[in-house]
């Protein structure tokens, strides 16, 4: 069961699944009756749609003469391409990048802290980012600097500042596994929450609403970044983490044994924390804190693939990306499904991604936990 061959097979299946999800993604979203995934791909390859078929779709016969002329076809192809690729696929690519980053950083933090409850937000990136974003909103810093919204910049630097403070306060302890670091992280997180309440208390409803929405996380490519804009921040982190995987395996054995095997323990910790913090801060700044991916996905990946970091980290990238794409599909389709059932006009609304990750992640995780067999049951992980 744990032979390398079967791991390779699983990774291949995972890659195929991601490919399939991306292939379908131009068709997922509201307004599916207008552009489905086939229509989008046909439009992408300039295959002329069938005129009779187009007639069955809404808003295609623009002059309402009962036939589709060339101008209307051209218009449709243009729209299908824009909706399918510029909007829907871009959104899925963003989900892929964000999910992969949060999951791999979560896996790394769980190894670094030797604690399965560690998440990419453990050191306070999320709370610092939220406070930064909130202050930007409160003081009306809504301009853009070099194309990046000021609010995003504030969130990014807010997150970094809190992590830096955590390290300053926990300076006495050189080792990451120490409780001082976790305590400092949790305490500063609480401080940020309190400050946010204070700012909320002194703001009007509109600002409060905007901030609560921000806290739920969003993959909207209109208001936040595209995958390509995130890559410069997160791709180096992926590479660093995967390159550190053999050393992280030794690190798991404990500081002393790792040191005796030639690992520079403190340097490894610093490199991994810096890489994870930068990547997570970028994600939080652009998409808000999307919970649960970093906590659950590494556990899933470890159980389905292997705990060996050389497998676990790439597997987390893969599973995290796929998980968030699926959650985003659900977030986009849930309301239109509910609308169809209740015959109310609800379509067009997209559920907050943070709600969906929890709704999907919690039951999946609990089932996996409950199904642990004697062989897989391990007390510390």
């Amino acid at each position, binding site marked *: 069961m744990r032979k390398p061959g079967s791991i390779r097979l699983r990774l291949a299946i995972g890659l195929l699944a991601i490919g399939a999800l991306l292939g379908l993604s131009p068709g997922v979203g509201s307004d599916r009756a207008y552009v489905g995934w086939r229509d989008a791909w046909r439009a992408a390859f300039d295959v002329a749609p069938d005129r009779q078929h187009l007639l069955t779709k809404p808003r295609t016969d623009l002059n309402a003469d009962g036939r589709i002329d060339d101008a209307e076809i051209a218009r449709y192809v243009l729209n299908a391409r824009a909706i399918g690729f510029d909007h829907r696929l871009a959104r899925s690519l963003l989900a892929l990048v964000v999910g992969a980053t949060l999951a791999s950083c979560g896996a790394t933090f769980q190894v670094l802290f030797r604690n399965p409850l560690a998440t990419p937000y453990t050191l306070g990136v999320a709370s610092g980012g939220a406070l930064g974003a909130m202050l930007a909103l409160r003081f009306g810093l809504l301009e853009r600097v070099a194309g990046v919204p000021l609010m995003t910049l504030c969130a990014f630097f807010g997150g970094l500042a809190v992590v830096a403070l955590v390290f300053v306060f926990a300076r006495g302890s050189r080792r990451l596994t120490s409780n001082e670091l976790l305590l400092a992280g949790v305490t500063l997180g609480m401080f940020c929450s309190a400050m946010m309440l204070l700012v909320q208390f002194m703001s009007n409803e509109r600002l409060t609403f905007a901030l609560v929405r921000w806290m739920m996380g969003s993959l909207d490519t209109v208001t936040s970044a595209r995958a390509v804009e995130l890559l410069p921040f997160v791709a180096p982190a992926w590479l660093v983490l995967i390159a550190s995987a053999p050393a992280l395996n030794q690190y798991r*054995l404990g500081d*002393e044994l790792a*040191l005796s095997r*030639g690992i520079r323990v403190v340097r490894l910790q610093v490199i991994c924390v810096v890489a994870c913090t930068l990547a997570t801060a970028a994600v939080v700044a652009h998409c808000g804190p999307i919970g649960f991916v970093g906590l659950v996905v590494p556990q899933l990946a470890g159980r389905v693939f292997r705990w060996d970091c050389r497998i676990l980290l790439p597997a987390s990238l893969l599973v995290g990306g796929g998980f968030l794409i699926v959650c985003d599909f659900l977030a986009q389709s849930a309301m239109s499904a509910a609308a169809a059932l209740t015959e109310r006009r609800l379509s067009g609304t997209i559920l907050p991604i943070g709600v969906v990750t929890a709704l999907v992640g919690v039951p999946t995780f609990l089932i996996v936990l409950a199904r642990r067999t004697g062989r897989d049951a391990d007390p510390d*992980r």
Partner: protein
Amino acid sequence: MMTERHAAALADPRPAGFAELSLHDLVFGFARNSPFLGPISWRVGPGEFWGVLGPNGAGKSTLLKLCCGLLRPVSGEVVLNGRSLHACPPRQRARYVAYLPQRLPLTHELTALEVVLLARYPFRALNFFESAADVEAATLALNRTGAAALRDRRMSTLSGGEAQRVHLAACLAQDAPLIVLDEPTASLDVRCQIDVLRVVQDRVADGSGAAVVALHDVNLALRHCTHALLLVGGKVAASGAPTDALDPERLRHVFGVGFDPVRRGDGKVTAVVVQTDEAQTCANPVQSD
């Protein structure tokens, strides 16, 4: 990041055997100005199997960690084959010294083979995954500790003795000429204790390496070790042949417990027995400087 150091490590993939480990006036302290250990001068030569004994808190584990370069001495030097251990890049050092800590690492989710394969890390300079040669070395090491049957078992399913055999195999697979084991026989049954020390004996018997092992059982040291070091309050109370260093009268002084020697026909001490008379046994309080 291909630094000079990495290049050096690649150029020297195999240790050039073991000449000697020597400690020169080594002093170690956790707090400034309060030496916990030392000054100690000590030499370990090839083919020697040293048992390090002493009361709890005497500094056995600290001494062993210093020998592996895991701790930085306050003053003095640990020299391995004529090179200071602290000047040595960690990865290269790992090719000379294998270490087994007192508390075994938690590796429940791994199989025995995976645990042993991890010890091949110092030799895999740039390879991401293990080679067939690494698997072969790991299998050989498992055979030598009598753990071949455990190869594909998960660590969480092993007993204490079985786990100890696997970790000992990891130490052997690291192919380091000097092996340093911190109480490898703790919490093992008599048979397992003897098996573990026999493996170490076999490893150093050909003179290509040496072993330093912390022990609590005087009789195991008398039985298996070629040399013994008795450590009291961070200082060497005695070192040399086990029968001399672990003299019953000295043990009585160190531990505050009376020992009776068990002699062979020719008068040589082969074992010691704790005296059964309670009043006499605990007459002396434990000495500590």
